[in-house]
């Protein structure tokens, strides 16, 4: 499989009154053709900002992409003018985005049809009739019944799940190579979440596209993602196949996350193990590992040395940690 998107050492910062927030601090990842990638982390870890940076959607000021490269289709997207023709042909066209809040990302005063036809008309210079035909077809595909009628509805006439389906249809409207879905199911209920995830996985097949799911919910990506990147405080701390991340996690943060949530299928009565402390403030961070203050496995080296680079531990499995969890299995059991 060939690499479709290659993000290298991406850095995005926000200037605030209190100082510079290093929201994304050297993130590298890649998305292969026809792959579903999960980007997991808690709020404020930089997962959304990294995705917005890829599409140059960071408001400047206060934000600024200060380094790195985003290689897509043989070009570095960061070299393009944010509002130039080249970037616009990528944004929404070749790389589409689905946002968390379908109500705020749809325009309330325009019909669904108007919003669905806009992108093909812009990107493909499609005439209005053809674009409308296509919009109806897409709405049918994403499971909206009476699509020909509903196309003249306004967003408020749709339920949350249906709005998110419209967002999915919109993302698909230009046959994108990559769809970035930023917390696509956070605002909806669990049965709707299941519907939407199933739909997105179907669409990846049908449209032969790649999908990046950004989420804080480990469960959401377990079923669908081929590869998972775990982020903490602006960096990727662990990456591997979905099976490795869940079956053999090696970074203390990933382990902590997995142990802190109850699972539907485990024997009950296990005491949850919370991660001590709080996620860090991203202003004026020390150069050491940002997870170190909360880490139950920290060693002296962690306090002396800078935040470690990602290192391979096995095959495609990478962690940014000095500690070898495997040697400390006993602690793992008792902690």
């Amino acid at each position, binding site marked *: 499989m060939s690499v479709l998107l290659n993000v290298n050492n991406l850095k995005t910062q926000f200037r605030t009154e209190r100082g510079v927030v290093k929201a994304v601090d050297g993130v590298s990842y890649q998305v292969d053709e026809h792959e579903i990638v999960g980007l997991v982390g*808690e*709020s404020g870890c930089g997962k959304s900002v990294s995705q917005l940076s890829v599409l140059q959607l960071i408001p400047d000021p206060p934000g600024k992409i200060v380094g790195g490269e985003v290689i897509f289709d043989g070009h570095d997207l960061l070299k393009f003018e944010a509002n130039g023709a080249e970037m616009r042909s990528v944004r929404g066209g070749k790389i589409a985005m689905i946002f968390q809040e379908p109500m705020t990302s749809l325009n309330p005063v325009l019909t669904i049809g108007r919003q669905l036809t806009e992108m093909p008309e812009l990107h493909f210079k499609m005439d209005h009739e053809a674009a409308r035909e296509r919009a109806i077809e897409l709405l049918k595909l994403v499971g909206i019944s009476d699509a020909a009628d509903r196309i003249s509805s306004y967003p408020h006439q749709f*339920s*949350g*799940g*249906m709005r998110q389906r419209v967002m999915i249809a919109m993302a698909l409207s230009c046959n994108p190579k990559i769809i970035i879905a930023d917390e696509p199911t956070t605002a909806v*209920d*669990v*049965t*709707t*979440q*299941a*519907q939407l*995830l*199933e739909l997105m996985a179907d669409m990846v097949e049908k449209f032969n596209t790649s999908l990046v799911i950004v989420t*804080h*919910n*480990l*469960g*959401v990506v*377990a*079923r669908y993602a081929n590869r998972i990147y775990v982020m903490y405080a602006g960096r990727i701390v662990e990456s591997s196949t*979905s*099976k490795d991340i*869940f*079956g053999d996690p090696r970074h203390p943060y990933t382990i*902590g*996350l*997995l142990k*802190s*949530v*109850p*699972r*539907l*299928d485990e024997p*009950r009565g296990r*005491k*949850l*193990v*919370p*991660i001590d402390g*709080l*996620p860090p403030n991203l202003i004026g961070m020390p150069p050491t590992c940002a997870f170190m203050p909360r880490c139950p496995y920290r060693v002296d080296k962690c306090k002396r040395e800078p935040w470690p680079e990602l290192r391979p531990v096995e095959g495609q499995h990478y962690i940014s940690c000095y500690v070898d969890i495997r040697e400390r299995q006993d602690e793992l059991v008792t902690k």
Partner: protein
Amino acid sequence: MNSLPNDTILEVENLKMYFPVLRGLLRKKVADVKAVDDISFKVKRSETLGLVGETGCGKTTTGRCVLRLYRPTAGKILFEGKDITQLPEGKIRPFRRRMSLIFQDPYGSLDPRQSAGSIVGEPLKTHHMVSSNGEYQDRVEELFRTVGLDPSMTDRVPHEFSGGQRQRIGIGRALACNPSFIVCDEPISALDVSIQAQIINLLQELQEKLGLTYLFIAHDLSVVRHISNRLAVMYLGRIVEITDWKALYENPLHPYTKALLSAVPIPDPFVEEKRKRIILQGDVPSAVDPPTGCNFHPRCPIAIAECSQAVPPLRDIGGGHEVACIRV
């Protein structure tokens, strides 16, 4: 005063809570939102009853009715044996001491200009639980320690605390009057994943230490399973299934419960590979004009013609496992 056996702290019978839909200049009532439509359940002392369901199913309304923050449209609420359904505001006060509420949003539920200490201590004053300033200070500090906060932080205001700490302040406030019964309304869903476990553990420790009874409202089924002794599943204003946690998770009977459980993602690709999901079609209908009969029937994979005829009653199919479905 006890007309009930001692082990039942709360009994809800045929509770209905309708909110009027008003239209036009004269604000004429044109319809009702049937937020809670004829539900009955009991909560035993020192247990946790989990109330699960999706947005708009009436779980929060149920919690608020039980605390008498709403005056129910119909039905009966017995708290510690006493009927509190229609008590006037003045008479409900003494009961408010015995029951309290933990809110979902630790940001919106704390007054941003009030100090943490006075937030926690306010119920003490409202209910005249302390006689002197010294006693008040001692109690506030004790409450801070109980919920794992540093008593030296009483003078700080909410924005100086993290989300998890704010939720602890909310819990401290809920505990101020030594309640026996607490409605926890989505107490962790606004918190970061790594913080949620801290609050769940705290709630469990407090229950053990203080003998609290919880009505735990949540949409996250993994969390509810972790904390509850018994569970009630709600759909569109009605309870469709109620039983102990084990039976519900190991042997769910109502088709909605089954779909709901199968939709919960498990953070394990090996398990997920073998799991089969029941994907429900369509959306939850409006509570203004719910479907006839069993209100789940338009989405139900096993519905038959009879399902749209009459509302299926909750019936015990053995061992206290109650389910409202004629196909079971």
